[in-house]
């Protein structure tokens, strides 16, 4: 990573941009376990964190890394881990713990092809459903993505902000192309960044209930060591944080875990839209594929084809309403993905099957090209 002297322009990989974003978001703890194509995130933070009093630890495995991140987060630190598919699978149990105990943290999954070891160095987008459903039990979760190093930088910050605001693990799903492409990143003046820090209790310890049922459904967890002695558990628990076996308390907790995300869709959802106003066909694309989709829009518009593009920044909660709205004004969706149609099914569901959803799959480890997308758009029109 080299910096231009006068301005804050850098050349960096998506993985490095992620590390930079984390630091500016206030992340001071990273626990990880190396895995291609995510390792540069760890490697960058191994160099940078100690310089700013942060802590970097390479744990014995991904499960331990996820556990350490949660432990650190409970002391009030902003904490993160990064991995790829196999490690993401291993982290699932503890990600569920973070959901249940409502511990803010960020998990980066740089996807590879799969299942299993699959194609460790080739791009894919095969973990998008896993990011939503990978852990057992009912819960909701926020999942972001990014299509460039610049967006990776920004969305890493966003991920931390969401984690802190909603007291929840947030997943950042990248792909190998975004992670490993070195490109221009403009780092803004840190002062100009919106940084969210979790709420602190406003009541004295005697009155404090960590999981108090509030209007916004979000708990306030005091950092360990600040005089608020409470209990954190992965068992169903009540407002005090102690385990419960009472049906009402169980129900209220499980529903709240989903509600606290669902209810704030308005704040969470973010889409980047291009030329959708008059479009007949809408491309739905994310990650590196969105880049190709942008080119495809340009190509097709050049040919007079009315095509637009929606790029969700937040994959989950899925932008149901927006897709539904768009459905009203278009004739078809085209959904190119480096998987076998994992998000296309969501588009179909959100569009209430009112228009055709054309799927473009690529699972051979090669990126989807602008031409491929343009071809399908032409076919569809």
């Amino acid at each position, binding site marked *: 990573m080299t910096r231009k002297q006068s301005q804050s322009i850098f*050349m960096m990989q998506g993985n490095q941009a992620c590390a930079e974003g984390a630091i500016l978001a206030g992340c001071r703890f990273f626990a990880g376990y190396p895995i291609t*194509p995510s390792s540069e995130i760890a490697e960058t933070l191994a160099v940078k964190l100690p310089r700013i009093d942060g802590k970097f630890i390479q744990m014995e495995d991904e499960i331990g890394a996820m556990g350490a991140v949660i432990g650190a987060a409970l002391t009030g630190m902003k904490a993160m881990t990064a991995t790829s598919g196999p490690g993401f699978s291993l982290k699932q149990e503890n990600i569920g713990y973070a959901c249940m105990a409502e511990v803010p943290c960020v998990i980066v999954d740089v996807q590879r092809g799969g299942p299993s070891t699959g194609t460790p*160095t080739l791009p894919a987008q095969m973990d998008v459903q896993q990011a939503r459903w990978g852990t057992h039990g009912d819960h909701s979760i926020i999942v972001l993505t990014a299509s460039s190093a610049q967006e990776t930088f920004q969305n890493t910050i966003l991920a931390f902000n969401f984690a802190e605001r909603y007291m929840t693990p947030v997943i950042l799903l990248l792909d190998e*192309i975004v992670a490993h492409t070195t*490109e221009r990143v403009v780092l803004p003046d840190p002062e100009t960044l919106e940084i969210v820090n979790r709420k602190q209790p406003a009541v004295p310890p005697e009155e404090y209930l960590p999981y108090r049922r509030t209007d916004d459904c979000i708990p306030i967890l005091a950092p360990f060591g600040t005089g608020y002695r409470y209990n954190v558990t992965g068992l169903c628990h009540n407002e005090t944080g102690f385990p419960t076996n009472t049906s009402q308390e169980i129900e209220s907790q499980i529903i709240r875990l989903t509600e606290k995300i669902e209810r704030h869709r308005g704040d969470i959802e973010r889409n980047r839209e291009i030329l959708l106003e008059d479009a007949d066909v809408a491309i739905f694309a994310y990650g590196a594929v969105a880049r190709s989709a942008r080119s495809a829009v340009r190509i097709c518009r050049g040919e007079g084809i009315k095509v637009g593009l929606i790029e969700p920044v937040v994959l989950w909660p899925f932008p149901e309403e927006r897709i539904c709205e768009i459905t009203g004004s278009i004739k078809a969706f085209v959904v190119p993905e480096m998987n076998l149609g994992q998000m296309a099914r969501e588009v179909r569901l959100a569009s209430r099957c009112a228009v055709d959803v054309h799927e473009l799959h690529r699972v051979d480890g090669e990126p989807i090209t*602008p031409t491929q997308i343009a071809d399908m758009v032409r076919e569809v029109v």
Partner: protein
Amino acid sequence: MDRYELRLSGSGGQGLILAGKILAEAVVIYDQRNAVQTQSYGPEARGGASKAEVVISDGEIDYPKATNLDLLLSLTQESCRKYSCDLKKGGILIIDSKAVTEIPEGEYKLYRAPISDIAVESVGKAVVTNIVALGILTKIAGVVSEEAVRKAILAKVPRGTEELNMKAFDAGLKTGEELLAS
């Protein structure tokens, strides 16, 4: 310029990834235009053919991979065989004439020079082959300023090796000039 695609290819350990990174940084940081750089990872990167790609443009670069090459640099026979088919008509092929003996067919401009020999001759070390190649390419492609590349090299090579690398770069520039002239 709309889009200019380069691929630097050879075998793992020849420093082509670094060369690609230097080139991209020269364009972006010092020439203040746009470039993206990618590379091959994986088993390929260990031992076998290795490649670094740079796409240069004045606008946004959506698709980051080089598929329709304006310029291909090949330092090994294997990489030349593998990648020359991606050269666009009228593109530029630069080869290390010692390593690549079997020249692929196609409509392109061919430049050959004993690149690694030049490295050894100019500074006594084959490790700077990548920088010599960068010099040649800078001259021949004409898409990045010499000054920018020079600065980028200085910013990226290990401390203490700056002079060595400048010499190598100069040797490359000179070779490039000769090739253009010939």
